[in-house]
């Protein structure tokens, strides 16, 4: 447990645990709304925000936050406009985000090491200011999900039913988009832009295999996410490898293990019932 003696590791642990708890909170709704790639889209907009913010002299995380929130609002407005092709808006903002990031990064004198830290995460170098920002944003996101939990679930089942029930669907969808943007920026600091979506989706996908209730899936996803972050941080510390990638690989490893266990259990059940192991032609 020598790693706990280091200040940088303590900060990394706090930031990582906050992100681990908050990302699946948003992630479960992102998955059931079939918007699993929204984290990727917003991540690329966040990258444009980092480089753009640096260009005009803003703190990079603040630049990312502002542009990602604007992008999230844009994606939601496009989703409402093109109801038949809801992922089209996401694709357009995704491309615009990465294009802006390329332009801003060539205009700015930001060192490539700084850019890479946002792309792949730099949890071991988070400052106290970063941790404070992550804590505030994480608390905000958790509070929004707590108060809108049932309404978000109803909207995920059917937007029309939610609106007939008296739920303000447009407002809640917009609030959810904004809070997703905030969580993407929080996750960006921990695992990097390229992997932030993974921290939102993979623990939820793993928990889904357990076939629990909605609340049970949410709790299991948070637990899987916390275990992934803890294992990822410790392993990366000792092996001196990238913590962001290690965290995500841990989550994917848990998913793969649960998937194999599930398949084995299904086969065992089939076998115990005396059913053929192969599919009928």
């Amino acid at each position, binding site marked *: 447990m020598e790693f706990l003696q280091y200040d940088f590791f303590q900060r990394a642990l706090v930031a990582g645990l906050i992100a681990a708890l908050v990302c699946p909170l948003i992630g*479960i709704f992102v998955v*059931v709304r079939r918007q699993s790639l929204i984290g990727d889209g917003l991540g690329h907009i966040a990258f444009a925000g980092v480089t753009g913010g640096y260009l005009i002299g803003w703190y990079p995380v603040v630049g990312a936050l502002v542009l990602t929130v604007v992008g999230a609002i844009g994606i939601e407005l496009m989703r409402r406009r093109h109801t038949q092709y809801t992922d089209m808006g996401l694709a357009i903002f995704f491309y615009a985000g990465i294009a802006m990031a390329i332009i801003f990064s060539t205009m700015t004198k930001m060192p490539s090491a700084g850019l890479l830290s946002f792309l792949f995460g730099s949890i071991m170098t988070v400052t106290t200011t970063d941790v404070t920002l992550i804590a505030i944003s994480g608390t905000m996101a958790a509070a929004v999900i707590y108060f809108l939990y*049932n*309404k978000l*679930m*109803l909207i*995920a*089942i*059917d937007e*029309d*039913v939610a*609106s*007939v*029930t*008296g*739920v303000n669907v447009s407002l809640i969808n917009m609030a959810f988009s904004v809070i997703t943007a905030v969580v993407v920026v929080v996750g960006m600091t921990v695992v990097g832009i390229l992997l932030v979506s993974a921290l939102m989706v993979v623990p939820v996908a793993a928990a*889904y295999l357990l*076939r*629990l*209730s*909605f*609340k049970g*899936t949410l709790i299991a996803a948070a637990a899987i996410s916390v275990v992934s972050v803890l294992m990822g941080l410790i392993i990366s510390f000792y092996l001196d490898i990238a913590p962001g990638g290690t965290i995500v690989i841990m989550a994917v490893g848990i998913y793969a293990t649960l998937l194999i266990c599930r398949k084995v259990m299904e086969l065992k059940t089939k076998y115990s019932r005396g059913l053929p192991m192969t599919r009928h032609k």
Partner: protein
Amino acid sequence: MCMVNLSNIRFSYGDDVVLENLSLAIDQGSFTAVIGPNGAGKSTVLKIIAGILTPQAGTVTIRGKNLREARYDGLIGYVPQNYGKNISGFPATVEEVVKLGTLAGLNRKCSKSAACHIVDHMLQLVGCKEIRKKRIGELSGGQQQRVMVARALAGNPELLLLDEPTSGVDYEASAKIYELLGQLNCNLGVTVIMVSHDIEKAIKWSDKVVCINRGLCFFGDSNDFNITHLQSRHRWFYAGLQGEN
């Protein structure tokens, strides 16, 4: 007493006029079936009553209130068509889904224990108590439909709107759904408006029939409704209905 009043409704999708000058008054406590051929505007009428679609002209009132008030007061319960694609694999149990119904009307302010009591009662009512812990996506079409009816009822609505409640459901399960709707109508006094392709069953269970076909409308008692009679008066109407069967 009038539950639903549609007055001179006009609705079009772009240039395609689906409803023209449609007026209807549906009584409280009635069981009304909305029938007609594909593209006739059946679901459109239901969505207008639910407030999901806004007509280009005309007014809709529910028990004398405008739709905004009616929805806020939880007067309307709505069971849509084809929600199946959203809930297949949805990681929520039956009781979690039914509990969402308590977000409507006066029940939205009820305590957690009261909400659990409502869920219990609704599941008992639709005969799904034993599957309450199952995931909604793992149920059969008929069971899912009953659960969705229970969810709609959990808001204690006075008007229940159902869009093709038996589509994709086998014969036996569909008979049970009609029976359930008949019981809700008779025992609880819930006004039921149901869009259906199954004309025979719809006429059997309902007491009023609204037969529409792109702006033209027949409205009357289901006992008086006779396809042969309709054939002699409106050949186009029968041709459309025959296509549905």
